[in-house]
């Protein structure tokens, strides 16, 4: 799915997959930190955004 999005021109780093158990709080924190770091680096998404105005 990530590959097809990338093929369409949507940055690969905007979609992340992980498997985290409810007991793995630290892993959850780490993954979310990494996701926000990568997405922040990409800046706001302009593609596949619906304009309601």
């Amino acid at each position: 799915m990530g590959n097809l999005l990338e093929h369409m021109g949507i940055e690969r780093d905007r979609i992340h997959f992980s498997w985290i158990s409810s007991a793995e709080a630290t892993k959850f924190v780490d993954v979310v930190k990494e996701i926000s770091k990568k997405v922040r680096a990409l800046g706001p998404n302009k593609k596949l955004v619906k304009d309601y105005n």
Partner: protein
Amino acid sequence: MDTCIQKIREIAFQLLDKKEVEKVIGFSNGTIPMATSPITIASKQDTEKLVFNSTCGLNLANYIRQQKGKIAVIAKGCDSRNIVTHIIENQVKRDQIYIIGVPCKGMINKSKIKALFEDDILKFTEDGDTLIVESSSKKEKLNKKEYLRDNCRLCQHRNPVIYDVLAGEPVEEQVLDVPYPDVEKIAALDADARWLHFQELTKNCIRCYACRNACPLCYCPTCFVDESGPQWVGKGQDKTDVNTFHFLRAFHCAGRCTDCGACAEACPMDINVRDFTRKLNKDAFDMFGWEAGLDQTKRPPLDAYSPDDPNDFIK
């Protein structure tokens, strides 16, 4: 290919005569030249209506679900692979269908031929690999090979993979060094150019869903685009909704698509929706060595777990 129609009619006649099948699903002439439409025949007198030529671009595997009794269906290479997919997905039982296999040399790109004429095409006939197309102003003799659909040009499974009887001699399979040149061409662009490519591709989409309806894989009782609670995607022609529809529909076909080209064939706006599905076909092949519909005994890659599955995308 034009000679095999006699054989198809003969087989259909015998099957209906001996009451071995209730119905035969095949192609008949459409209302305009260079068009054929699917037809269901239940009486042996009607077998004369069956035709088979290079304009039979739709996929008849789309019509074999939820039929009562035994039915016969005419299947090209790609159609036969969709029948296998149907068997794997429990949509039909193998013993419920009688498959009349047709080795196929490809179907023609009708838009490309129409573009040669300024006026309407009045007559279309073919003689071996020559297409003879006439309008009121001119008559053209065309080499079929130059007017094949893109998916047929890149087809590596022209002979049916599953059949009860063959209506013609098997044809030579193509072996391609680069099976996905179209996908690679898009992949070579940068991200913004790729995005632009798909924006341009879908900009004329009128959301008629002909691609979905022609697709043998799209048999969900309620398609996600038609659901209202929750409503997954907007129903208008907003470009984001259009793209979401095409993206998700393609993804639902991941590891199942046989690149039969029925979606692009059915599209009234000539959108090559295969640009979406081809990428997934390539991925399925690169990551899982999988081509859909070749083996009844194997589960599709997205349906089965294997320790060898690529999993570096997951954190």
